[in-house]
């Protein structure tokens, strides 16, 4: 829905601060067309899904930026591109000023890789079932040549203690642990190379709530202790609010709104953000009034023209159907991509939005 946020705008706003990650105009297309033979025979055109359509953001040192979105929002695709697992179609990703996808920087990449790591969604798939836990955690130590032999063993024990497991646990295999413990092992592995930036792709969505609390607390403790910077990907707004300093809301591959976490929950600007916050179940039983969003996420193969949210938006007008909104900065510090907010016909406090 958002055209590329004007890079100069983002740059101006972020220039003063110390950014670990700078993402500019990130685009990723997936070719989902049938095979060449099939296409030629049936005369079908190539089909391309725009999973991410021009996303720009910065992550400052020591902060947690959360990207929140539903399925098809492109949040995991962004995570993969940021850590270098998936090449972008266009745009750039700089970590500590180095463009990680620029072939000219390939020699620098080996050292740079030490500085960022990733925590994955599924703790049952992210640990090699045939490896002992100590070998799993030692792998980055070996590969980066950080420690050898006895020192590696001590370091692995130390890392296991950091995530509140015991050094003896290193002798076991992943299947001997519960989901929460496995996620701790993943965190220990991620910390092995002493990174400063961690991408966390739905790190707790496969876990039970009580275990989720343990992992979220651990992640925050580690951030305080080690001064980590997080890119936190989630579909769960409550978790995001708990973890993030700033939140970016993704819809169909574009950023709808980026704002400080507290401000966003106090005063969501974009209509999609409003409806997402409205959709959170009222677990405190406050009796807060809610208007659930209508409709469903459109097929990304055939996205609506103009603002991609307009078919579901209660405020949509003619302009939204025609023109892709660009991100603009609000006085409050939020970046919003919405014609209605920009022109002021999306009210300050629309129906259904109460103090939360």
């Amino acid at each position: 829905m958002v055209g590329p946020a004007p890079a100069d705008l983002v740059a101006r706003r972020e220039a003063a601060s110390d950014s670990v990650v700078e993402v500019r105009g990130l685009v990723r297309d997936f070719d989902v067309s049938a095979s060449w033979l099939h296409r030629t025979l049936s005369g079908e055109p190539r089909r391309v899904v725009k999973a991410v359509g021009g996303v720009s953001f910065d992550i400052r040192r020591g902060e947690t930026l959360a990207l929140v979105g539903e399925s098809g929002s492109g949040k995991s695709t962004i995570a993969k591109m940021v850590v270098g697992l998936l090449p972008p179609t266009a745009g750039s990703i700089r970590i500590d000023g180095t463009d990680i996808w620029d072939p000219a920087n390939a020699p620098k990449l080996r050292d740079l890789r030490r500085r960022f790591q990733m925590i994955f969604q599924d703790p049952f798939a992210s640990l090699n079932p045939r490896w002992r836990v100590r070998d799993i955690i030692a792998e980055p130590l070996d590969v980066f040549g950080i420690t050898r032999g006895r020192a590696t063993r001590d370091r692995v024990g130390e890392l296991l203690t950091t995530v509140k497991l015991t050094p003896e646990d290193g002798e076991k295999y992943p299947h001997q642990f519960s989901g929460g413990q496995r996620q701790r092992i993943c965190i220990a592995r991620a910390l092995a190379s002493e990174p400063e930036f961690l991408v966390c792709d739905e790190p707790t969505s496969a876990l039970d709530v009580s275990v989720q609390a343990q992992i979220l607390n651990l992640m925050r403790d580690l951030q305080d202790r080690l001064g980590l910077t997080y890119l936190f990907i989630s579909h769960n707004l409550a978790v995001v609010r708990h973890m993030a300093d700033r939140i970016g809301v993704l819809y169909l591959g574009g950023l709808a709104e980026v704002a400080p976490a507290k401000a966003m929950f106090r005063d969501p600007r974009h209509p999609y953000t409003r409806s997402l916050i409205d959709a959170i179940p009222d677990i405190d039983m406050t009796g807060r009034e809610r208007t659930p969003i209508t409709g469903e996420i459109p097929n990304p193969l055939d996205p609506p023209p103009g603002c991609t949210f307009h078919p579901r938006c209660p405020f949509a007008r003619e302009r939204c159907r025609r023109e892709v909104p660009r991100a603009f900065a609000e006085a409050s510090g939020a970046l919003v991509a919405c014609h209605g907010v920009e022109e002021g016909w999306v009210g300050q406090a629309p129906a259904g939005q109460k103090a939360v």
Partner: protein
Amino acid sequence: MTDAVLSVRNLVVEFPTRRGILRALDGISFDVGPGEILGVVGESGAGKSITGSAIIGLLDPPGRIAGGEIRLKGERIDNLPTERLNRIRGKRIGMVFQDPLTSLNPLFTVGQQLAETIQHHLRLGERESRQRAIDLLAEVGIPAPEARIDNYPHQFSGGMRQRVVIALALCAEPDFVIADEPTTALDVSVQAQVIQVFRRLCRERGTSAILITHDMGVIAEAADRVAVLYAGRIAEVGAVRDVLKRPLHPYTQGLMGSIPSLTGEGERLVQIPGAMPRLNAIPEGCAFNPRCPRVMDICRRERPPLIDADGACVTCWLYDERTEQPPAREAPAVGRPA
């Protein structure tokens, strides 16, 4: 409660394995009143889905009901032969599963599937059945039901499909519906819509239901009462408002505290140490005792009974009159920070 639509008493479900018998459910008891939605909530392995499967007689082998009884409007259904149970399923008990595609046949239009069920169970003619099916689709909020009724399941989106399944579960006018994680596979924004539809339909038709979920949010949205399961046992049963706002059992208190709040100041989450025991290593006495912040001697020795406390039922020795200091409800040691 004699007027309960569904009544479960001391239900025990066992899975014999070659390393011994695992007790997946151990003495579960609850009632569901007329028109009531009972939420059954628990973490993975607590036995919530097995409760649902046991009630409809669809336990995966080698699981078996090893004790207790299940009554539907006073009639025992836990020991029925398969054939009679098959007649009860669908007609008297409707079912909604997590994956809507398990309930829908991909080879028939949703109209055919709905009309056939209606015809079969309600003994209506073809035209009336079809009309009834269209009405139902409209009721579950499917736009243009006259046109959509001739579509195949794959032509619906995930949320719409789950609405169709809800229509299918309710079309035979069952006494009772079991919904097992009906919204888990859906997106957040769609989840709220589907839960609302489910709740509205049960309300309008006075259908009782069990709503099985791991998500306290879904419970808060849709249920009237809630049963909290832990390690195959009931920790607490009570009105949703009470259990969510003022949980009695230390496990429920911890559970509620561990959910990130939308109102708090980003404080640390309450965390329950450790993890739920595996079925082959359930501790003696109260199953929660090794993780409980308020554990007493008796908890390690004896299993607490279901104790009436303040309108709710809780299996915790803290609320037994014999224990020395009955705790104040307002000041739990662990709990949701206000």
